């Protein structure tokens, strides 16, 4: 009969009733799960937290509590906040690389455009030099003949 107790009630050495709120989420075949959660949060706090939630969300809540408890046991100083720091650092690094790569793409694009533009447009400098060797300078419409009148 004692094997019918959930991990929580077994650990707390109490009778596991049919309406035990912890038993669905702390089965007897995984005692370590409750031990971890109890060490960080305490049975009372876990019970209060789960009671406040609708039934369909309690499993996810129990899972996340277990994850956070494990993180805290492995890293008593930072717990799962250490993971957040690390992820943020990684994100910053990748963002920097992305910005750098996008800048390189922009440079390559503009170099390519410049090259195409130079190939497409006539070389006015050379044209003027050739003409000045042989002919009078070309007159352009709207050109001011002398001075800035």
């Amino acid at each position, binding site marked *: 009969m004692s094997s019918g107790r959930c991990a929580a009630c077994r650990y707390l050495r109490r009778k596991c009733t049919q309406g035990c709120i912890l038993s669905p989420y702390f089965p007897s075949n995984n005692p370590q799960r409750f031990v971890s959660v109890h060490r960080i949060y305490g049975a009372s706090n876990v019970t209060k937290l789960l009671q406040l939630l609708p039934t369909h969300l309690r499993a996810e809540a129990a899972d996340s509590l277990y994850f956070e408890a494990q993180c805290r046991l492995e890293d008593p100083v930072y717990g799962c*906040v250490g993971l957040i720091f690390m992820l943020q650092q990684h994100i910053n690094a990748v963002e920097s690389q992305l910005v750098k790569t996008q800048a390189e793409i922009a440079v*390559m694009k503009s170099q*390519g455009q410049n090259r195409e533009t130079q190939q497409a447009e006539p070389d006015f400098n050379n044209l003027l030099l050739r003409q000045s060797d042989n002919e009078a300078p070309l007159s352009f419409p709207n050109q001011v003949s002398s001075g800035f009148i």
Partner: protein
Amino acid sequence: MRSQESRSTSSCAACKLLKRRCTPNCIFAPHFRSDEPKKFAKVHKVFGASNVSKILIEVPEEQREDTVNSLAYEAEARLRDPVYGCIGDIALLQRKMIQLQHDLALARARLSLYAATDSAGISNTDSDQFCTAALGEFPVACGGGFMDSFSQTSYEVNQDTHMYDFSQIPYI
């Protein structure tokens, strides 16, 4: 005299909330000042004063401030989101990381293609079209729901970026 000292304003936020005398060697006093009552209230609500005290005793004194701040962060996250707590933040960051890694891989592939087409003498316009055609089917690893985020293995695009492998912590 002694009673006046005990009634002075030197009681920390923890002892005020717990309605007890704040001793000179109170473990909470350096980290839960009396002008920050909400900080301890949140931590106490989620973890309990006794558990916080045990955690603080286990860490070196110089790391207790960081410990308290991380506990406060976790408590705040849990009160804000009672189902997922901090894990919600982690899942969001993880998805952002995956998306960024995908964008970076795409950008690097595009850069390589530009370099290749440039050296081959292909025009800019043609290389644009070529890039779009070549990279149109680039695979995207999408993070799904909460469980998917934790069951995914690290999505490594290159050696420089590495995502934390949640499978190291027994979760699923």
